[in-house]
């Protein structure tokens, strides 16, 4: 299963990339929480940003909870609380 990951703002800068193609074993279900935990193993910056309580996630460009499961081809984004306007 392949996910297209996107990172924005402070998280993008901290992890040092804006997009990432992530291949996951397709023999189990992956929640967003499980994907975040896997990414957190990449280093302290990843873990600090992805495990921060106010970090938001969006699946296919709609904000969603971390217990949602992902599917092959999904776009999954992580970003901080928004500050536009």
């Amino acid at each position, binding site marked *: 299963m392949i996910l297209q990951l*996107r990172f*924005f*703002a*402070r998280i*993008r800068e901290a992890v040092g990339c804006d997009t990432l193609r992530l291949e996951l074993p397709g023999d189990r279900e992956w929640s967003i929480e499980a994907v975040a935990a896997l990414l957190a193993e990449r280093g302290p910056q990843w873990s600090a940003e992805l495990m921060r309580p106010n970090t938001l996630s*969006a699946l296919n*460009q*709609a*904000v969603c909870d971390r217990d949602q499961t992902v599917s092959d081809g999904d776009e999954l*984004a992580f*970003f*901080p*609380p*928004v*500050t*536009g*306007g």
Partner: protein
Amino acid sequence: MPADAVTIQQQDFDIASAYASLRLAGVGACVVFTGLVRDIHPGTTTDLELEHYPGMTEQAIADIVAAARKRWSVERTRVIHRVGKLGSGDQIVLVGVSSAHRGDAFAACEFIMDFLKTDAPIWKKELADGEQTWVDQKASDRAARSRWREALPQSEPTDKSDS
């Protein structure tokens, strides 16, 4: 002329053209709000850099406009949000709403603006004296949004002679 339009752009915008696109026969009220980059730290020069999530930003704002249309009688809406580098005093956002009556236009405009601040995936970074700081979301913005949850939808007809 579309009923609703959402534009995310780097370049500045012209309030008169937005206003012109909101005017049409039968419209009695037109409210156009513009947000400007304010002096964040008086005495120092602070620029802003705005980043957004292309595609999702437009959709999130379109959803907010659709929610406003469910609550108030609205003719046309225009939302323009700038991204990229902006300086003090620059125009940053425009929300325009036209309606038969001013009550609907004022309320829908403020509703769209309040939700835009908490729901549209746009982020501001302050650039001052070589320092870069991501702006934190304000509790006052979350409070401004949540007060709409407490208020019930307003659907009572208004006096037609009043605009």
